[in-house]
């Protein structure tokens, strides 16, 4: 059962590695968390969880695994059982196996049992475990070194109660989005490079080379270090996007504040991209997509933002544009394909949550562009994708694809 925590954490996206799990075992071997469950809760969190954003996921995993565990004795027995017959996480590497062998489980178990016996005898002398005999688990931590102890209910249920409070929900990154968080996520794209002609005096290098050369002056030069990052941000300004306008404007302000882009172009489109995009929200100032493709080279990163929900004809057919009086000779989907062909790296950010992605046009567009949710996690993954790392976009759910059955989630 104890190993369940490992898998429960993994299932909730906490990237616990077997190495960390073994570290936890090592810590337990030092006799660290046997006096109460609250300590085990802290201990496992300190070792396995490396970001406050994942604290909430940890709380949930903890609840799932330890709900109903009333006494620390139960968990102690679990761990003793485990040590007698260690079932390991399946994905142990050779190095980790070697680490585990070096831990010598047999001596570890003996020492543990000895320690347990000692503690049992010293405190309650009975069947109750140290730390639960009426004192609060908080009392152990020395909240006030002067000796003031905070009272409270004793017993092993405390840890589950702490977890159940879910104090860290606000730190989740798959929900919260503010400009700063987006800014941090956008920084994932940062890539400085020294390219081109040697033009800058490398002062430090020159000094060192000279010194190393016993005083003969040796001049070093190097190319300037600068960012070559060009970003094209295309945002849907259609009516169905209104509920997400705040979100999109936060993305926009974070992107325009980001100092590490050499060039940022932000344009708007209405539901789908056709011959023109617009430089302003009111769609007065048009910019021909042909032109745009000529000015930005293939290395520029394309980020499309939109709910990708439209009438299938807007996407699939000639003259399908929603704008009255606009006759597009090339279907929207062909324009999207051209964009995709032109740019080496492109992503689509969708402000709708993943379960709503069953709309047919969402499905068609996500076949062309890797589509990510407009959340901190989603943006981070999208940025990783843009910088050339392999990231699998989430799978949109299969939906009622038959015509007419689907309404936009925001439609009244």
């Amino acid at each position, binding site marked *: 059962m104890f190993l369940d925590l490992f898998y429960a954490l993994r299932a909730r996206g906490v*990237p616990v*590695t077997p*190495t*960390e799990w073994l*570290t936890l075992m*090592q*810590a337990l071997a*030092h*006799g*660290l968390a*046997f*006096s109460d469950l*609250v*300590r085990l809760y*802290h*201990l496992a*969190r*300190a*070792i396995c*969880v*490396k*970001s*406050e954003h994942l*604290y909430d996921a940890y709380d949930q995993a903890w609840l799932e695994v330890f709900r109903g565990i009333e006494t620390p004795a139960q968990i102690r027995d679990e761990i003793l059982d485990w040590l007698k017959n260690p079932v390991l996480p399946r994905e142990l590497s050779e190095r980790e196996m070697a680490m585990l062998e070096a831990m010598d489980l047999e001596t570890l178990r003996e020492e543990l049992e000895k*320690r347990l016996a000692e503690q049992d005898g010293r405190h309650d002398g009975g069947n109750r475990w*140290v*730390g639960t005999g009426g004192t609060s*688990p*908080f009392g*152990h*931590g*020395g*909240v*006030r*070194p*002067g000796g*003031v102890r905070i009272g409270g209910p004793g017993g092993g249920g405390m840890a589950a109660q702490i977890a159940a409070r879910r*104090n*860290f929900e606000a*730190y989740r990154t798959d929900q919260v989005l503010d400009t700063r968080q987006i800014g*941090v996520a956008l*920084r*994932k794209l940062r890539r400085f490079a020294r390219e081109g002609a040697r033009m800058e005096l490398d002062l430090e290098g020159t*000094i*060192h080379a*000279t*010194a*190393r050369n*016993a*005083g003969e002056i040796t001049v070093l030069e190097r190319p300037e270090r600068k960012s070559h990052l060009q970003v094209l941000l295309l945002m849907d300004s259609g009516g169905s996007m209104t509920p997400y306008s705040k979100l999109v404007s936060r993305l926009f302000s974070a992107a325009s504040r980001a100092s590490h882009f050499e060039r940022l172009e932000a344009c708007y489109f209405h539901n789908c991209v056709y011959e023109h995009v617009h430089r302003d929200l009111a769609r007065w100032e048009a910019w021909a997509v042909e032109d745009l493709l000529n000015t930005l080279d293939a290395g520029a990163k394309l980020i499309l933002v939109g709910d990708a929900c439209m009438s299938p004809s807007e996407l699939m057919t000639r003259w399908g544009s929603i704008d009255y009086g606009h006759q597009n000779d090339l279907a929207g989907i062909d324009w999207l394909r051209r964009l995709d062909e032109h740019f080496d790296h492109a992503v689509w950010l969708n402000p709708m949550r993943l379960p709503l992605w069953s709309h047919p046009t969402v499905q068609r567009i996500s076949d062309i562009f890797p589509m990510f949710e407009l959340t901190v996690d989603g943006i981070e993954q999208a940025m990783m994708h843009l910088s050339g790392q392999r990231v699998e976009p989430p799978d949109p759910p299969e939906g009622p694809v038959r015509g007419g059955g689907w309404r936009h989630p925001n439609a009244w």
Partner: protein
Amino acid sequence: MTDAFDLFRGTPSYIAPAALCDAVNVAVALGRPLLVKGEPGTGKTLLAHAVAEGLGMPLIRWHVKSTTKAVDGLYVYDAISRLHDSRFGDRDVRDISHYIRIGPMGQALTATDRQVLLIDEVDKADLEFPNDLLRELDEMAFHIPETDQTHTATQRPVVIITSNNEKELPPAFLRRCIFHFIAFPEPDLMASIVGVHHPDLPDALARQCIARFYKLRQVGSLRKPPSTSELIDWIGALVAGGVPEETIRKELPFLGTLVKHEDDLGRVERAMARWKR
């Protein structure tokens, strides 16, 4: 819990909640670095001082800047002095070891007794900085190619690393750390923290200040909400200025110690006008 493990319980001037003590003690017992994150002003750097004091070990500080390189913490080869000396013949330039200066981390690793090493604001440095320290933190040893010497720590130092979340830290680095996030203190804990810093403060006044402080933190969209250290300074100012309790109930004297941003001052004043109504 054995006492051998339960080494750190906070100090008279630093109140550490149970979760934080546990994290410190795990890091000490396993000889792993402890990575501490949290809002500015929640006492990340102070923790290292408290751990050093609580465990009775000397503290070595390494403040990381944007230009800091990992090797700087281990040692610096002062080639310029050597060049200078070779020209003017002050010292024996044949022996490079005269020109090797051991950095803060190098000091912690070469010391004969156990040290507490604070690596402050690790996220300020270049993205590769933490990765460059992996081997040294794992093995607690470093090599100086110039003199071909390897120094291995006889006592693994207690390493405390703080981060303000300005940059993501690499997964390989995180895997080796024990992690703790210092959450913003609840009012009860805050009361005891205030008690430690201002022991003579009357209870009623302390309660009033803390209530005002938490109300202030709730003012929406402050750029920099005031933190623990600012509350302590503010109370210090109130005590020094002899401000009576009733005044604090009605207004916020010395607001500048709490709120540091121009826009925030405006927001707070508008909020206060609403409270009065």
